[in-house]
């Protein structure tokens, strides 16, 4: 039986205008069989949430490349809960913090903020796709 396509909302959060990586993710996720809602750059938390509600999304995937990710992502999980998206999967990836910090610590901090997974800079899209398939129970 054919599975219903899983819906992902993607975008670059905050005042960040790095468009290229997000575009690559859009194509990679679409090719991998996901229904992708691409919000582009400079996306606010509220816009991620509004899009996820209307489209009944399964996951929100936040990119951040300019080092302000930690500030921009704070409170997103709580707002999702507030908006009725209690079980939505939250991923974050890119240069999400300033400077060189051990990634396991960064991951821990984002986990505490409610992000199910965090991805360091330079992660190939295939890694995200594998993780999505696992978390959303998509069978090949």
């Amino acid at each position, binding site marked *: 039986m054919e599975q219903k396509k899983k819906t992902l909302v993607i975008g670059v959060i905050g005042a*960040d*205008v790095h468009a290229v990586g997000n575009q690559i993710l859009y194509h990679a996720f679409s090719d991998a069989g996901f229904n992708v809602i691409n919000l582009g750059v*400079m996306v606010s938390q509220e816009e991620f949430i*509004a899009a996820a*509600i*209307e489209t009944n999304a399964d996951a929100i995937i936040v990119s951040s490349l*300019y*080092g302000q990710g930690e500030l921009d992502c704070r409170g997103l999980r709580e707002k999702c809960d507030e908006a009725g998206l209690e079980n939505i999967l939250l991923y974050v990836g890119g240069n999400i913090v300033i400077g060189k910090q051990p990634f396991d610590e960064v991951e821990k901090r984002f986990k505490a903020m409610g992000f199910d997974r965090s991805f360091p800079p330079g992660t190939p899209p295939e890694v995200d796709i594998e993780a999505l398939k696992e978390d959303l129970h998509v069978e090949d």
Partner: protein
Amino acid sequence: MDPVLLIDFGSTYTKVTAVDIDEPRLLGTANSYTTVQTDINNGLADALIKLEQTTGRLDFSARYAASSAAGGLRMLASGLVPELTAEAAKTASLGAGAKVLKTYAFKLTEDDAEEIARLSPDIFLLCGGTDGGNTDTVIHNAKVLHKIGGSYPIIYAGNRNAARECERILEGREVHITENVMPAFGKLNIEPTQKEIREVFLARIVQAKGLTQASELISGIMMPTPSAVMAAMKLLAEGTKTQRGIGDLVAVDVGGATTDIYSVCEGLPDDPRTSLKGLPEPYVKRTVEGDIGMRYSIRGIVDAAGLDRVAKIAGLGVERTAEIIDMFANNTELLPTDGETRAVDEALASMAVRVAVKRHAGRLEEMFGIGGLKLVQTGKNLKNVDKVIVTGGSLIHTEHTGRIASYCFYDEEEDPESLRPEKADILVDRRYIIAAMGLLSEHHPEAALKIMKQELVKDDSAK
């Protein structure tokens, strides 16, 4: 000569306009009180007698009518997220000429249900969810509507995956299913809904409003008056096969209870690097400011603009200005009689224009980030629109139309982000013919455009 009659059954006045479509020109206009309580034909007959006193006996080859009588086309709309499907539902309804009493977002509550029962609209527009997206909310809302009961038709323009289920829930009700107002995220698809609204209006609302008696006399097309205005403005902007239009435009209609703004333009950013936020904007857009009007909503103008500002423009003291405003508020039929009341009336009209156009226009924000300056536009860019059409009693019955209308212009000091027209010609609808020309345009667009070009005259009083 081939005379055609255009009728507008308004909430207060029945306005008649006679035109010759053979050699396109305006023959005359007249009005009388609308008599929807007794027989709507009485008011029409009175208006026709008045008309023929000036034009002489006319043998009309066709009669077309628009109506905003008996409260206009009263609609309620619901969507899911306020700035997404709920906004799309509202935009669709306004663009169909409806009076949108309220727009609901998320799941309808018990309070909402009571309110809906009390308001008992002419049509309820049920939306929510993109196709394949959320279905819970729209299904919940269908159940609430079922529970409320009532006999008004429901138009379903939500997530297509929930359409049949909602139809089953609403069994026994008149339900019209059409395409989703937002089939995919951020994609606006309002025309099918507007077509449906118009069909329901023709099939049902015209009868319910006691307008059928009139329809025997009328060759056809009953549409809500604001639809007629939109049709006229679109024609004026675009032109026909043989005549050029005047290009992008904004139209301002300051009424007693509301102020309606229309824009016909794409409204895209000047700088292609600007990023666009929010819903895509319709090419022909109508917004209605329910709190901005010259009599019934006079307090709303003062709330939005400030009493000091109104007094300053009027050139009067604050106390005297407040007195005159009270007088207008308590006597909605009152027209300005002397210098002071005229000054206040004009100051209020100026602020109504400013506030309503500002709400209609988009905004351009400058944001500084790591990548330097970034421009973000929301809504329509009206800066390059160079024609502003004005109508409404307080704007057409004054010598200072241009001055009042100039308050719609971009003002860097007052609000640098607002994308209002930078400078434009002001064209005045002195004889109040726009809605009539919209009606005429359905069958005789060439004549309608020619007459508008003759009748909408440029006002230079601002310069």
